[in-house]
């Protein structure tokens, strides 16, 4: 009997009035609907017995736009703009694994400088995503300053990405074959100075938010996801790294030039809400360190994009490539039948996998823990619905 079933039994012993069918009317069903400050584009129905949540059923799909079906009607390059829409503030990562999969199918070799710029864009975008996630986490706990500070600092990185790619959030910068255009000059030291500014700001986040006793009381020891549960539920990204599983795709399956970068996989052992909210901050500090390395090791000049014929097509085949996005392993399974249009594209995103942990973690918790637990799963509804 795995620990999840044990938790059900233990909560019975705990005396959480587990409602027998006859007492169904004791429960109050609450729909934490699409229009609810505590849940973004997502709805989950919870049954509340007094202050305890005894049942939770996620109901995604409010932003399901049929990306996978649309992929089958566009050729490989045209897919990039609409494939980055599920998570526009992490667009470099979501198009990164798509480009890798397509490059494997079509057999293109990305020049070295292009790989470096691609990695820099993906690291910067990871920070933009994590800062926005941290901002929403702050407002979910009622800490409005914690919404404003990261949103403000995020603009600094967005300016960098705007200089690099031309657009604020939807860059369409990583394409099969490399990056769309080269890095503007002067970008290198501007990027280093912004990174140093951001590293200073992380300490201030810790002072005002992470070391705040109220925040600690609300998150430490809440909704603990043990290691076997994490592996059993197949969650990914900061959620699994918070439960002492040091899995990071950049380290486990290094793509492009990540094997030349030495960085530590940040993970924590407690696996509670606090760990799940602290690991992204450690990731951000780590990716600042990575960006500095990338900027040093980058070849000074060279091609940034492999030449492609207009409708690139390769031999029929399948490929599955994944990348460490802001929310964990983000994989693309592409089946191609020799024509430029992919035959089938399956996007396996971190949020969809982390959503599974929601009903397990919310069981037996208080209603007031709902936003803290829900958003600590690093869940972006638009991406989960694809």
């Amino acid at each position: 009997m795995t620990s999840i079933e044990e938790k059900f039994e233990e909560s019975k012993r705990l005396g959480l009035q587990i409602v027998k069918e006859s007492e169904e009317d004791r429960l109050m069903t609450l729909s934490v609907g699409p229009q609810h400050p505590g849940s973004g584009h997502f709805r989950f129905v919870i049954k509340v017995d007094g202050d305890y949540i005894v049942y939770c059923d996620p109901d995604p799909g409010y932003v399901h736009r049929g990306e996978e079906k649309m992929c089958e009607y566009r050729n490989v390059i045209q897919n990039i703009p609409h494939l980055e829409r599920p998570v526009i503030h992490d667009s470099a990562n979501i198009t990164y694994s798509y480009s890798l999969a397509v490059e494997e199918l079509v057999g293109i070799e990305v020049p070295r400088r292009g790989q470096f710029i691609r990695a820099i864009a993906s690291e910067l975008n990871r920070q933009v995503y994590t800062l926005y996630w941290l901002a929403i986490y702050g407002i979910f706990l009622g800490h409005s300053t914690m919404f404003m500070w990261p949103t403000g600092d995020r603009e600094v990185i967005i300016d960098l990405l705007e200089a690099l790619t031309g657009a604020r959030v939807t860059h369409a910068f990583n394409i099969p074959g490399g990056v769309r255009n080269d890095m503007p000059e002067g970008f290198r030291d501007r990027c280093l100075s912004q990174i140093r500014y951001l590293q200073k700001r992380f300490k201030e986040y810790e002072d005002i938010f992470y070391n705040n006793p109220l925040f600690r009381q609300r998150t430490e020891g809440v909704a603990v996801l043990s290691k076997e549960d994490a592996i059993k539920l197949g969650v990914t990204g900061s959620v699994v790294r918070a439960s002492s599983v040091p899995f990071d795709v950049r380290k486990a399956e290094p793509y492009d030039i990540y094997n030349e970068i030495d960085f530590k996989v940040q993970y924590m052992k407690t696996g509670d809400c606090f760990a799940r909210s602290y690991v992204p901050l450690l990731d951000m500090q780590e990716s600042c360190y990575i960006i500095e390395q990338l900027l040093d090791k980058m070849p000074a000049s060279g091609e940034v994009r492999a030449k492609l014929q207009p409708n690139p097509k390769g031999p029929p085949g399948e490929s599955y490539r994944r990348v460490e996005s802001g929310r964990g392993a983000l994989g693309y399974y592409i089946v191609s039948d020799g024509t430029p249009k992919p035959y089938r594209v399956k996007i396996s995103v971190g949020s969809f996998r982390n959503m599974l942990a929601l009903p397990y973690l919310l069981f037996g918790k208080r209603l007031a823990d709902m936003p803290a637990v829900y958003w600590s799963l690093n869940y972006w509804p638009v991406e989960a619905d694809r």
Partner: protein
Amino acid sequence: MSANNKKELNKVAAGSQTKHSSSTSDDTAQEQPPSPSTQPKQIPAKPSPPSATAAASAATTTTTPKPSLASSPAKTQPEPPPFEKGLVEQLKNKFGDIVKVVFIKPLRIKIQVEPQDIVGVASFLRDSMGFDHAESVAGTDYPKDNQIEVVYHLGSYSREELAAHILWLTARTNKDDARLPTLINIYKSVEYHERECYEMLGVYFEGHPRNERFLLPEDWADIPPLRKDFRIKGR
């Protein structure tokens, strides 16, 4: 020769070079695959097919001419990397010809299984081979041979050397009444993936607690959208 001789897909074993800060997780008792994991993976001498350097002859990546019919075992692809070969040997001598190996690429192994014994293979994969969670479940509709292929991408958190590998456990059902035994009792993580696969492709998973509407709107009356005969309007 491009400056870097690194193959884009070359596998640098996680264990050998980069020092892992964490202690490797508790290795379930494994009889070691033929090539012990401690022995550092040297870059396979043979150019791995997909990202061969420009000079090397770009062998065709996969053997299946068209992913329609079960691939013939004769592989034109060069001899697969030793570690993956070890895994496949393990499966072979456990299940014999129930498991058909479609192809072996560095880090990716695709095996095809009949629907009725997919549960046995999956539980073996999880218990003794260390593939402890499913990354995603993808369904693909092949109208030419009237079949739907469901691919389980199995990954591993507990075993270090398997962290980079993904094993594709596939099963094919015919399209009219697509039925597949569910793997929810083995891989808890496929619950929502299978539910989405049911909704998008109409593959009924026997034993799955909730084969019902998941992402699509409640009043969706059309056929499952990811099937090839569901045309997008105007295209």
